[in-house]
């Protein structure tokens, strides 16, 4: 077998795959954040908690109601998205007219409350969620071993990200959304129900987080803190990609996952910080982010 810079290919491609998996979660989560930020101008700090809720709803579906993974993949985003709609209608709407910093504080507080409630009920040691039977095992590709479930996560994330991009950039509904993001007052004056769009957008962004949570459940343990750990990195991804940029969120999410994975191979000591180093560099050179429009 060949070696690259003294690294065996099994280790290299293994980390590339891990990087792609992490990148999948970064991409879906930062995509949801970007969609929400674009229209609501709120940095949704509850996003990590909503990702965690997605994983928990999948776990509850299985353990309380016997609903399998595939149904949960559809159901959990709907349930958690509905709680998002309730949050927007009952709370975020009331602070829409004040400084956006209040939205950040509110969603941050909500995240702490939600995580606290789940910790209280389920503890913080984590709950196991089985990989669905159809996706157990894997395939030896010669240069590496590919577990089916991990391959599925990457493919499912890519499909969801591209479908979201298509919805926003290529459909009539997406044009409403972009118009409302750019100039809500005028869009409303054309007879378009912008408050409804805002509510649905928040619900959709939250549903994306929950979808990522279900995907994550069989890989990481279902844990009340699983979102809190991840969300900090995701915010860095969003900053690097550019706040509010749809394509930016997707491309940056996957690329940074990859870069992180490669760093684990070539210089493991930096793997936990490489994304933040890139964030600092990007902020210095291009403060609006790689794909962001300067304000």
């Amino acid at each position, binding site marked *: 077998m060949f070696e690259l810079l003294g690294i065996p290919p099994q280790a290299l491609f293994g980390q590339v795959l891990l990087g792609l998996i992490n990148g999948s979660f970064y991409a879906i989560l930062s995509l949801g954040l970007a969609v929400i930020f674009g229209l609501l101008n709120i940095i949704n700090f509850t996003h990590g908690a909503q990702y965690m809720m997605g994983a928990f709803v999948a776990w509850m579906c299985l353990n309380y109601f016997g609903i399998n993974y595939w149904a949960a993949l559809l159901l959990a985003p709907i349930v958690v998205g509905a709680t998002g709609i309730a949050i927007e209608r009952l709370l975020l709407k009331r602070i829409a007219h004040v400084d956006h910093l209040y939205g950040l504080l509110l969603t941050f507080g909500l995240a702490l409350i939600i995580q606290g409630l789940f910790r209280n009920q389920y503890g913080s040691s984590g709950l196991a969620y089985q990989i669905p039977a159809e996706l157990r095992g894997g395939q030896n590709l010669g240069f590496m071993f590919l577990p089916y479930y991990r391959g599925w996560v990457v493919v499912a994330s890519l499909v969801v990200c591209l479908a979201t991009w298509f919805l926003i950039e290529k459909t009539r509904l997406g*044009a409403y959304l972009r*118009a409302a993001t*750019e*100039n809500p007052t005028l869009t409303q004056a*054309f*007879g*378009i129900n912008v408050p409804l769009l805002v509510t649905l957008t928040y619900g959709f962004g939250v549903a994306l987080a929950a979808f990522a949570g279900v995907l994550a459940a069989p890989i990481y343990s279902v844990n009340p803190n699983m979102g809190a750990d991840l969300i900090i990195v995701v915010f860095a991804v969003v900053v690097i990609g550019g706040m509010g940029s749809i394509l930016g969120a997707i491309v940056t999410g996957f690329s940074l996952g990859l870069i992180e994975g490669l760093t684990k191979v070539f210089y493991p000591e930096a793997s936990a910080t490489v994304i933040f180093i890139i964030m600092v560099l990007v902020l210095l050179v291009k403060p609006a982010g790689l794909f962001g429009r300067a304000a």
Partner: protein
Amino acid sequence: MAKPAASAGAAPLLSVRGLEAWYGESHVLHGIDLDVAPGEVVTLLGRNGAGKTTTLKSIMGVMARRKGSVSFEGKETIGLPSRTIARLGIGYVPEERGIYASLSVEENLLLPPQVRPGGLSLPQIFELFPNIKERLKSQGTKLSGGEQQMLAIGRILRTGAHLLLLDEPTEGLAPVIIDQIGATIRKLKQEGYTIVLVEQNFRFAATVADRHYVVEQGKVIDMIANADLDANIDKLHGYLGV
């Protein structure tokens, strides 16, 4: 204060009484009164900051704080959100045209939903504004100023709205384009559209309008029929400070 004209005896399509509006704490309209009959083209003339644009915004419902009365086809709209007002059949071309940079020309054109039957079809709009047809896939703001203005007018003609509020459609445009906009407005009038036009340029306004309201410090201070414009030209110069 001039009484709003009861023109041609028709019941007004749009009737505004004692309209007041605020930007935050700043009180900018102090009681606007005006009437617009069906099929009329009426302009609001006045200096910068007189309250012309704010009047249009208040009729459209985009001013958050307003009071008084705005009735459209006999229906009171002062408490309605702008999206409901638009759906009654009022089309709005904002100042600086409001073309979306994040939408293509085609998406800009198709954005406002149809609010009434009888709007222009796309081929009819392209006949009116041939330039738009060739640029459908371009980004909205990549069009020239004149093309953007045509797009801004075209997109509300699709909706079936029959009262059009146009905020300075000639601003910053070359004379040849202004002529084209003027011809379009006269054509729309022939088709039976009712138009309220905010203008700085009263020479342009005189070529399209039936009547002119003069706005000063948030009030209508005079009304001049277009036929009487020549006789009142000195007075008008005084109002506008030109």
